């Protein structure tokens, strides 16, 4: 299973090459059109099928929810509360993302340096993915809770687990993706192993690393949210979503707003990785 | 030596396209007449428009001004009449079809029955010497064998014109020379007119009745050199002093272009 996930990731630059030229010219225009179309369809469907607010609230009331106060009008704004919780989720995801990313990169470097270690360890790395961690998430959270670990740690562990595998595979592939005959060329300059790593392997691996990081970014947010579901979690956008679902009948727009925040959180994290990719790898990686 | 009505008549052809730095003239005022059954090579440096000229003849792109007449028809009409067999530098075989079914592809599209397709493809595979590989998949074959399948596929519906765009460009020198010999044998058994695009001077001289030397910026015909080496040609032809003289002549014209 995991190998195909990576295959998809590996091919991802091809998507952007095929899709982007088509999108780029009209991208801003298309986004505006899309937003207008969504609003028209949404409100149109509501009007046409007489959908009650319980099924489909007005877009305005969903956005208005951010500006209304909690605790029946005396607490802080919902927008602030949701952002705080989203920040907590982002913190958990980011911690795991960084830990998993570092672990993945280290493993990949070790694998590239020592094919023997790779042959010994890679089956375990691949085998680790047989455990569907998202399904195990409740146990991780409850187990860590029993140990008295801080609340965020279990979510970060889930996020790290989801991150390290794509990064290990992507980075190993990237470190080997040096141009043909580039290694003999470096050896002909009597370059040291370290020089080969810094001047050849690392730059060659960056596009692959970022392809993996993009997969991991979304996965780590999902991992954190799922980690927030078991009873007892105190903070996080997952908690807000579950609570909002419980009070749905009295405040339907609240759940819609919470889900919107969760989606935007995923998009922002992913967008940040894309931005970092543009800055570090530059546009040639997409070409 | 040939004065039959031309099978391909190209008259004052110009092709321009919009590049990044304004208009690019790919071909300028090209005129050429090609007789039935003739073997013509187009040779020249990159950017001289030799591939563009081939693609214009094959109706893969449209001229800006000027005209091309194929057997008295427009190229589009000729294409619809299935007058063209095309071989590219890459074999472009379909991975999911066996060798036999790759060769049968054009016949399938033209609506021929199964038994007729089988008969024709077997005949073609015999012609290119791949009879025992009919059930293999393309990726199981070497580059030279794949290109032979591509030639068989191009000839299977007996097109009157064979367009070849550097078909042996990706092969090693020895395979390439063997394939050139085989191509001449195959051509001798068909009545096809061949337009052969190449970078290689010995290849052009060895194969052709006439070598069309082209030059770039803008793409145009620099010279047309008749190759009066006797046929059938073989390995000895390549060692003939006259072969070297002709190759030198082509080289000179290319250098001054």
């Amino acid at each position, binding site marked *: 299973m995991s190998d195909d996930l990576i295959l998809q990731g590996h091919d991802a630059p091809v998507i952007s090459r095929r899709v982007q030229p088509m999108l780029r010219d009209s991208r801003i225009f298309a*986004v505006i059109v899309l937003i207008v179309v969504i609003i028209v369809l949404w409100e149109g469907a509501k009007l046409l099928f007489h959908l009650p607010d319980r099924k489909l609230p007005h877009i305005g009331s969903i956005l208005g929810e951010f500006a209304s106060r909690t605790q029946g009008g005396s607490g802080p704004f919902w927008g602030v509360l949701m952002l705080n919780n989203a920040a907590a989720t982002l913190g958990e995801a980011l911690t795991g993302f960084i830990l998993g990313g570092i672990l993945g990169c280290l493993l990949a470097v070790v694998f590239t340096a020592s094919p023997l270690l790779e042959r010994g360890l890679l089956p375990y790395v691949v085998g680790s993915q047989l455990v569907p961690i998202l399904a195990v998430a409740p146990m991780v959270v409850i187990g860590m809770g029993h*140990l008295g670990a801080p609340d965020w740690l279990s979510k970060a562990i889930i996020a790290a687990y989801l991150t390290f595998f794509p990064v290990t595979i992507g980075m190993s592939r990237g470190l080997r993706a040096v141009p043909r005959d580039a290694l003999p060329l470096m050896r002909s300059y009597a370059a040291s192993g370290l020089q080969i790593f810094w001047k050849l392997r690392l730059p060659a691996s960056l596009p692959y690393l970022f392809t993996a990081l993009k997969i991991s970014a979304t996965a780590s947010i999902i991992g954190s949210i799922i980690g927030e579901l078991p009873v007892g979690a105190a903070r996080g956008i997952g908690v807000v979503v579950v609570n909002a*679902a419980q009070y749905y009948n009295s405040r339907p727009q609240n759940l819609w707003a919470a889900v919107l925040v969760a989606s935007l959180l995923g998009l922002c994290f992913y967008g940040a990785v894309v931005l970092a990719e543009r800055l570090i790898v530059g546009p040639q990686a997409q070409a | 030596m040939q004065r039959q009505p031309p099978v391909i008549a190209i008259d004052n052809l110009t092709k321009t396209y919009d590049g990044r730095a304004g208009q690019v003239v790919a071909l300028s005022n090209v005129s050429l007449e090609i007789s039935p059954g003739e073997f013509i090579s187009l040779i020249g440096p990159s950017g001289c428009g030799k591939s563009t000229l081939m693609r214009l003849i094959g109706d893969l792109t449209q001229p800006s001004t000027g005209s091309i007449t194929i057997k008295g028809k427009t190229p589009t009409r000729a294409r619809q009449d299935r007058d063209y067999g095309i071989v590219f530098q890459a074999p472009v075989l379909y*991975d999911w079809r066996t060798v036999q079914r790759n060769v049968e592809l054009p016949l399938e*599209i033209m609506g021929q029955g199964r038994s007729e397709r089988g008969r024709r493809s077997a005949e073609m595979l015999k012609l290119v010497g791949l009879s025992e590989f009919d059930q293999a998949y393309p990726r199981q074959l070497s580059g030279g064998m794949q290109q032979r399948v591509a030639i068989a596929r191009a000839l299977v519906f007996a097109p009157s014109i064979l367009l070849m765009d550097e078909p042996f460009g990706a092969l090693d020198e020895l395979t390439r020379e063997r394939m050139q010999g085989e191509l001449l044998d195959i051509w001798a058994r068909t009545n096809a007119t061949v337009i052969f695009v190449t970078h290689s001077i010995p290849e052009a001289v060895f194969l052709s009745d006439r070598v069309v030397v082209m030059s770039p910026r803008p793409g145009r015909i620099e010279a047309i050199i008749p190759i009066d080496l006797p046929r059938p040609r073989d390995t000895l032809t390549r060692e003939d002093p006259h072969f070297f003289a002709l190759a030198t002549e082509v080289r000179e014209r290319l250098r001054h272009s």
Partner: protein
Amino acid sequence: MAIAQANLKHMSPAARGRAFAWRWGPALATLLLVLVLWEAGVRFFHIAIYLLPPPSLIAARLLERGTFLLGIGLYTFEEALFGFIIGCTLGAVVAVLSVRWRWIAHGLLPFAVASNAVPIIALAPLVGIWFGSTTQVSKIVIVAIMTFFPTLLNTHRGLLSPAPEALELMHSYAATSTQSFLKLRVPAALPFLFNALKISATLSIIGAIVSEFFGGPLKALGVYITSQAGIGHYAEAWAAIVVACGLGIAFYLVIVVAERLVMPWQTAHEG
């Protein structure tokens, strides 16, 4: 692996058995070793059961409650399977339409790309409100959404994958656009489609279980895992996860076998 397979036909039964053992032996030995180390480690270090129950205990629960676990596993698998069928079929059909009519691609592909970044699972409560949070339908819808986008993107890419020369060849035969589509684009897209199906198979099982975390009847795998973990029955929860793994691997392998059958040329050349 491919070499071993290609040669299998020409082997005696004994040699075939040896090749099989050579291929799968190390993996099985590793699995056994891991189980033994796990069991020994848990016992030796007195690891609390809430962190990791010993495999013997999980196996005991699996045997005790095997029929029940398989039953709830199949209940969840139903959701995954129907969601998979709906999502992948729609994805492939929309990909075909979007190659035929470019404006569909323009409108939908940005969403498909964005869907990579959105935690779709967070939509589960909303889908539950529309389709009933305890019904199978709401889970099927979530799985369908999760599998729709990868299938759309991959199939679309596959349909656009033929080289320009391959299309020009079709043009030179004066092929109709239907002929080019059926004889060139569709077969060229098959490897991409199967890649998407393999991703979606795994995704659909996980998606069904995780969407059950948001609510569902007790006879669902996801609900069972959370409820058992919540009341301290960790070995029961782990046994349910073993069932989930088994279902996921089985579903994936079915797709792999289908891929081999549908695309014999993919493996033929590796011999």
